[in-house]
Every structure is written in structure tokens, then in C-alpha cells.
């Protein structure tokens, strides 16, 4: 046991003395969270818009109030004529213009029908659609408010509720994704590199010719990365709760439990990579191409699995990140308990056993 701890201590020294790797280890998740959270997002905030209010009546003012109270829009100024609007679009000052016609409220009251013109800059179609959707929501909201007092007969109202993420924020989607990716990166790549480095530097030769059982060499290598991964996980969760305001709905213990299981799955994968590679370069390539790519493509994090051809859907079943992604979304976003995710947990568990036994079987107690 003393031997084992001494080995773990040595392993930690390696990690902490390699500043570049350490920076990558903790820098990558922070940068990813910050990037995805603030820079690369589908949400559009603080878009410049203009409102041309030709009506200036009760209804138009109420709607304008509603629009300005969201943080999606920044109302620039109230232009008066269409040529000015045209110029503003052309110069790119504004993304959207809302025009209320004259007699807006009177029309609404008397004919039960009124129109608002929404002009959007669709040179970036996604932004255009998203912005008009926001306006739609506001107007529909106002409609509904009015309908409470004025009774329209035979009207079908569609009530849409966006579950777990009513504001359609990006964060709930990518935080589990980043977790799956970062843990994979740390565990598979770092572990395999750490083991292969011993082979490459020749220290494995000395270690093998010692009474220390080879299996403990491997286990001792895995311990520091397990600890580092848990720290990483905590950093990601803290960032997502406090910086991205994404609450953890489910049990924290369950969250750490399943994450630990996933980390062990990844560690055993790293072990498997290390038994196959003989150079650090090889280990890195194998984990990047063999692990990162499928994880990115087939975990459901970037592209929805449901839309893939059946062959890719089949392959996605062997990607551990897919199952972890499902589990984390269930626990973190939906607040579900173990009874809802036991199947996925079992699959991960089975994969771990499989990878572990395969890599232990392939682990060489000699040099060849």
C-alpha cells in the first residue's frame, strides 16, 4: 500500500511539474464554458431595432413597453419614414424594424384585426428568424392578455411550453456536452499519454523489473487523473451555475456518482489506448481521432442522433459519451432520479467492465 501511495505521489508530481499540460487540463474546460456560454451562442441579445409608431395609441405603446422590457432588443430611435429605415438596414445599424400602422388600436377594437409590420435583416437567416420569433412571442403574449378580458368565441389557442429550458438558452445543451468532452479528453488522452511516456522514456523497463505488480502501475497512474477529473467537473459545474446561471435540478450526489462512473469508463479507455500505442504521439493521435471525433459527432451534443442514418445511429451506441450526455441532461436539467437513468448507467457500467478487462488482458508484463 505504501508503494502504491508513493507511486500516486510521484504521478501527481509529474502532473504539477508539467505546467503546459496543467494549463491545458484546467484551461480547456474554462475556455470552452466561457466561449460556449458567452461568445458562441444561438441566443441573440441586445439587438438594435427601431420602432416606427405611426399609431401612438394605447395598444401600440403597451406592445412597445413589452418589447423594450425584454433584453433581446435595444430600441435605437424612432424613425419616421421608410427611406430612413431602409438606410439604417443598409448601413447595418439595425437588425429589425417594427412598424405600427395608424389607427392600430381602433382597428383592433372594431374589426378584431390589426397588423404590425416586422422587417428583419435576413442576411443572416438564423438571426432574422430568431428575432422575428421573439417579436412573435411578445405580440402573442399581448394577444393572450387581451383575450382574457375580451371573449372570442371558438378560438383555438396553441399553448407552447418549452420544457426544462423555457427561454431556449444555449447553456443547458452545451454544459453536459462540454462535460462529456473534457472528461474524455483528460481521462483518455492524459492517462494514455502518461502510461506511454513511461514506455517511451524507458522507465517502464525499470518498473517492470521490480516487485511492484504491473497492474498497480496502471492503477496508480489512473488515480491522479480521477482526482483531476473530479476537480475539473467541479470547475465546470461552478462555472455553469454561477457564470451561466444554469441551476442543477437533480441530486448533486447522483450527478457526481454518474460522473465518477463515466470518468472510470474513460480511464479504462485510456488504459486500452496505452496498451495499443508505443509512442506518446501515437497515443495522442489514437485518442484524438479514435475518441474525440466520435464523441463530438455521435454523442448527440453537436448533431441530433435522431436525424442520422441508421448506421451512424448504431455506431453512436458504442460511444460512452452518448450515454453520459443522456444521463447528465436527465439529472442536471430535468432533475430526474436514478430510476429514470438506470438503463444508461448500466450500459456505461458494462462498457467500463469491458474496456477494463480488455486492457488488463492486453497489458504487457514484459517488453513485447
Amino acid at each position: 500500500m505504501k508503494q502504491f501511495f508513493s507511486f500516486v505521489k510521484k504521478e501527481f508530481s509529474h502532473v504539477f511539474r508539467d505546467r503546459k499540460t496543467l494549463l491545458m487540463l484546467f484551461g480547456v474546460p474554462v475556455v470552452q464554458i466561457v466561449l460556449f456560454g458567452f461568445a458562441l451562442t444561438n441566443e441573440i441579445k441586445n439587438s438594435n431595432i427601431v420602432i416606427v409608431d405611426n399609431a401612438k395609441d394605447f395598444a401600440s405603446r403597451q406592445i412597445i413597453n413589452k418589447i423594450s422590457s425584454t433584453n433581446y432588443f435595444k430600441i435605437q430611435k424612432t424613425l419616421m419614414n421608410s427611406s430612413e429605415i431602409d438606410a439604417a438596414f443598409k448601413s447595418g445599424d439595425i437588425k429589425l424594424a417594427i412598424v405600427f400602422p395608424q389607427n392600430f388600436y381602433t382597428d383592433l377594437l372594431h374589426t378584431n384585426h390589426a397588423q404590425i409590420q416586422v422587417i428583419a435583416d435576413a442576411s443572416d437567416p438564423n438571426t432574422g428568424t430568431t428575432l422575428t420569433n421573439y417579436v412573435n412571442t411578445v405580440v402573442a403574449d399581448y394577444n393572450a392578455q387581451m383575450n382574457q378580458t375580451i371573449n372570442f368565441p371558438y378560438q383555438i389557442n396553441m399553448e407552447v411550453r418549452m420544457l426544462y429550458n423555457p427561454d431556449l438558452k444555449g447553456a443547458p445543451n452545451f454544459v453536459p456536452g462540454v462535460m462529456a468532452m473534457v472528461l474524455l479528453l483528460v481521462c483518455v488522452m492524459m492517462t494514455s499519454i502518461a502510461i506511454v511516456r513511461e514506455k517511451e522514456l524507458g522507465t517502464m523497463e525499470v518498473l517492470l523489473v521490480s516487485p511492484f505488480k504491473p497492474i498497480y502501475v496502471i492503477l496508480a497512474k489512473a488515480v491522479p487523473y480521477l482526482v483531476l477529473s473530479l476537480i475539473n467537473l467541479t470547475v465546470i459545474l461552478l462555472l455553469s451555475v454561477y457564470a451561466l446561471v444554469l441551476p442543477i435540478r437533480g441530486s448533486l450526489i447522483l450527478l457526481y456518482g454518474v460522473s465518477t462512473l463515466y470518468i472510470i469508463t474513460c480511464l479504462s479507455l485510456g488504459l486500452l489506448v496505452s496498451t495499443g500505442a508505443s509512442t506518446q504521439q501515437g497515443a495522442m493521435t489514437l485518442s484524438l481521432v479514435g475518441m474525440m471525433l466520435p464523441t463530438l459527432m455521435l454523442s448527440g451534443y453537436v448533431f441530433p442522433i435522431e436525424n442520422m442514418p441508421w448506421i451512424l445511429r448504431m455506431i453512436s451506441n458504442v460511444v460512452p459519451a452518448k450515454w453520459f450526455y443522456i444521463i447528465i441532461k436527465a439529472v442536471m436539467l430535468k432533475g430526474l432520479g436514478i430510476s429514470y437513468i438506470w438503463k444508461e448507467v448500466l450500459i456505461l457500467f458494462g462498457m467500463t467492465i469491458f474496456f477494463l478487462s480488455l486492457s488488463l488482458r492486453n497489458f504487457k508484463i514484459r517488453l513485447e
Partner: protein
Amino acid sequence: MSTITLNNITKTYNKGATLAVDDISFSVDKGELFGLIGPDGAGKTSIFRMLTTLLLPDKGTATVVGYDVVKDFQKIRGIVGYMPGRFSLYQDLSVEENLNFFATVFGTSIKENYDQIKDIYEQIEPFKDRRAGKLSGGMKQKLALCCALIHKPEVLFLDEPTTGVDVVSRKEFWEMLKRLKEQGITIMVSTSYMDEATLCNRIGLILGGKILALDTPAKIVESYPEKLFAIKSSNMHQLLKDLRINDTLLNCYAAGEYIHLSFKNSSGENESLLTKYLQEKGQTDLVFKETVASVEDCFIRLLGNPDGNSN
């Protein structure tokens, strides 16, 4: 009793395509300092790795302290000290950390076995906080030797411990080995430096996976069959050229400041005839004398005529 025995050991790589060790048998006695002498690629490292249980022989059996290298590999791993050819310690750990780590891995501590490494460790102790990667070549080897010795091994395997080490450090290193031998540790060492061969109790000359000769350095030198001469002149380059085209010579080759040569037959007139021949060729300042063969001379002779060892 023999501490190390090899019986008909054969080792090939690339599924039999490369023959590394070819049917080798020898044994090393307890407390002996045994040297495997041979050029790079002769098969020295393969033998070391088989004896330290890192490689499996294709054919034959080998034992270390009575344990079979294949079946009892776990037992052997506990009682031997091994220093691979390449510096194999953790470059990012300090001298002391390296030693501490290996001590614990072998289930002991520096304190417990300090007397074993004291002589050697004292020399590197001033640098104990320095990272191993920043040590000089000689220092690294001393540290590696400390790490291999920390658990009081019964047998020490040192694979080319002095390669890439300066002359002074090499000398110190061999003195350390001598002291270790006096403590009763069996040492098997390999080297490609011929001058180190005389420092061993017995040596095996190895080439192409075969042992060409195996005896004490003195006996190997004694067994040199012909008379050996050393010659030099003012124009060494031309001298070697002239000697090469002379057909009375068995061989001739540069050896330090002299050229060593021997004759095909042992006629008494050889020397005067050769001197005359060289003078006709215009060689001046000739120094021509009989000399005693060194291990290197024996090796070169075996290289040229690998089967010439039969007498």
C-alpha cells in the same frame, strides 16, 4: 554454484526474421563481475532483457539465482537490480525523489539501506534537489546505479552503464563496481569499450548474437595465436595503404598511435623483409616492435575470422 545460467538461448525479432541471440550458453558464478563485450547490435541488450524477465527467449532456458526467467519471473524481479542502457529515471523528479520512489517501489527506504549506496550517493548528494534531467551524464549513471542498488539486490544487471560518460566518470564507475563486487554482489555488465574488459573477472566477446570467446581477460589475451607487432612511421596514412597491399600479412589495422599487424606464417625473416619493403616504399621514421595483444586485438582478430577460436 552459478548465479546466472543460460542454456542454448535463442532470441529472434520480427517473427523470426531478425536473429538477435543465437544459441548462447554460459554461466556466471556467484560474486563474479562478468562483462559482455561487443559492438552495438551484437545482442547484449537482448540477453540482459531476457535475464531480467523483460523478454521471453524463443528457445532455451535461463536461470537467475536458481529461478527460471520465464516461470519465476516475479521472484527474479524482487532480487535483481537492473540499469537499462538508456537513462531511465524520471527526469522531472529530483535526485532525492527518484531515489525515494525506487526505494519505496522495492519495499524499502533510503534510510534502511543507506550503507549500500553510501559511497555512490555521497558523490551526488550535493545535487539532491536538482532534477534528474539536469544532471550530467556521469551523475545520471551514478543516480541510476543508486536506484538499482537501493534494495540490496543479489544480482546487478548493468546494460552499457558507461556509454556516453566521460573518461573520469567511467573510471570512477568501474571502481564502484569493484567495491560492489567485494560486497558479494554478482554483477553482469555490458560495454562496447574494450579497455573496460580487463576490469572484469571474466568476459564474453559477443558478435552477431554469438559468443566468440569466453574466459578471463588474461587468458583471452594469452590465447592470441600469432605474434603481434606494432608499427608507426611519419606518414601513417600511407603506411596503412602500403601494408594493406603486402601479402605476407594476416591483418593490419590502426590501434591508437600505432598500426597493429601479424604475419601469415611465423618465419623469423618476416620483420626484416617487411622493414625492407616499407623502406623501398619510402617510409621514414619507422618504429617496428613486437607487442602484447589486448582484448581489442583479440576481438578484431575474431571479427575477421570468427571460427579461428577453435585452437
